[in-house]
């Protein structure tokens, strides 16, 4: 399904549904699809999670590497989060270097986690000025059924909360659980049929407009926002979705809590 065919019929159908406050798969405007979360599912990853979110399937894996710290932060480790949006995930994805979509996904998830302060970089120091841990989160999308951002964000934080620092394998002490003090959660809203809805599915994304993603921390503070795709929104619309976001973030955080520890 190439970006060349703008699906006018689908857009019309979505607009008609929206007039009577309906969605194409029968959900309410702010209703989430069914999701499943597994943690610790990847043998060679130090932390891992599999999220099945409607027709979207995403794995996140955490690996650790030892690095020399940056000169200006000799006692701090680092974090890197990348995403691969490979051809396995959908007919529409081509092989080749990382697409802008793939880069945006990784960077938005990265900012949500990094800015929440859930990982204290000082906890990742091994020998100040010499050796620190770099935590690498790789997001691997296997099936794109819509709303990759929220599924990827959930997989990433769940994989982190499940992660063990492999100190023994690197000969720098005993393994220990990666300290993750907070659970930032992303929620994404998409304009479909003229109004913003939560958790758009594949068809809604295809016939929809702009997307707004918000990452909220445990105390309800915002840690990242990202508006993407063509379209605009207004300050009152922003206020409305932030209220909905708060509720969903709470529920999803409880889901993560129930699966780890």
């Amino acid at each position: 399904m190439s970006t060349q065919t703008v699906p006018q019929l689908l857009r019309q159908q979505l607009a008609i549904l929206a007039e009577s406050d309906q969605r194409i798969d029968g959900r309410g405007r702010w209703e989430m699809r069914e999701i499943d979360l597994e943690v610790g599912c990847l043998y060679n990853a130090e932390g891992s999670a599999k999220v099945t979110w409607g027709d979207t399937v995403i794995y996140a894996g955490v690996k650790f590497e030892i690095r020399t710290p940056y000169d200006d932060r000799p006692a701090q480790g680092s974090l890197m989060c990348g995403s691969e949006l490979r051809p396995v995930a959908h007919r529409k994805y081509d092989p080749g270097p990382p697409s802008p979509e793939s880069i945006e996904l990784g960077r938005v998830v990265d900012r949500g986690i990094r800015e929440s302060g859930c990982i204290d970089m000082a906890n990742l120091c091994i020998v100040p000025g010499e050796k620190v841990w770099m935590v690498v989160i790789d997001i691997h999308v296997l099936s794109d059924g819509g709303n990759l951002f929220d599924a990827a964000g959930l997989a990433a934080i769940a994989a982190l909360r499940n992660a063990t620092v492999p100190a023994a394998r690197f000969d720098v002490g005993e393994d220990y659980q990666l300290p993750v003090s907070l659970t930032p959660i992303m929620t994404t809203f998409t304009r479909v049929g003229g109004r913003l809805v939560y958790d758009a599915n594949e068809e809604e994304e295809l016939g929809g407009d702009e997307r707004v993603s918000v990452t909220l921390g445990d105390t309800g503070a915002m840690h990242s926002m990202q508006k993407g795709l063509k379209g605009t929104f207004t300050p009152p619309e922003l206020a409305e979705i932030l209220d909905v976001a708060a509720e969903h973030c709470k529920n999803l955080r409880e889901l993560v809590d129930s699966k780890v520890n």
Partner: protein
Amino acid sequence: MGGYGDVKLLNDDGSRLDGRAIDEMRPVEIRAGVLPVADGSAYVKHGLNEAIVAVYGPMEAHPRRIQLQDQAVLDVRYNMAPFSTSDRIRPGFNRRSREISKVTAEALSSVVLVERYPRSKIRVEIEILSAEAGTRCVGITAAAVALADAGIPMRDLLVGVAAGKVEDTVVLDLDKAEDNYGQADLPMGIMPATGEIAFMQMDGDLSMDELNTAVEYCFKGAADIYELQKAALKDRYNGGDSQ
């Protein structure tokens, strides 16, 4: 965002290190039509940031697979010159510039009347010559003027402007120190005539109340830049700068 409270960013009288008030922007200067061979162009100096934008098109979109049947494609490149920062940047795109190019293209597509030019392409080349903090916003401000200078029809101009948080205080238009050591950054792309938001990113830590203040400051700043954009275009059509 970097540190939290470990660097002093506000004076005792509540003003900022460079003397600006909480809701005061750095000086902004805008010129349209600065590049001879482009179809449209603009120069924006915002604080110590300097950006030049060239627009080419509308032209046939090739290769054909990038064509859209019912609208023009905006092919936007945000590029930092190697000498635009304190440490030299290796030429070529990186992950940061690709993300900024993508969201900037999407924001500009929201204001340009792209449906007027099906199957065509409009190239927008954003070159950052000097970077202080907030270059993506400066690029958006300049791109909107360059598009208008090229005669591309738009619903409104688009203004790039940011607010942020330093020492638990919301401020308009972070400068470099505030960006490095502040607590939050909220760059926005605002259509002043309609009050719509076409571009928004945020990172750091911001409560709902702080967000409201920050958005308000951004709208206020956008209104001021909007006047400068319009003046630059008026000046250009009155026989102003073509170099």
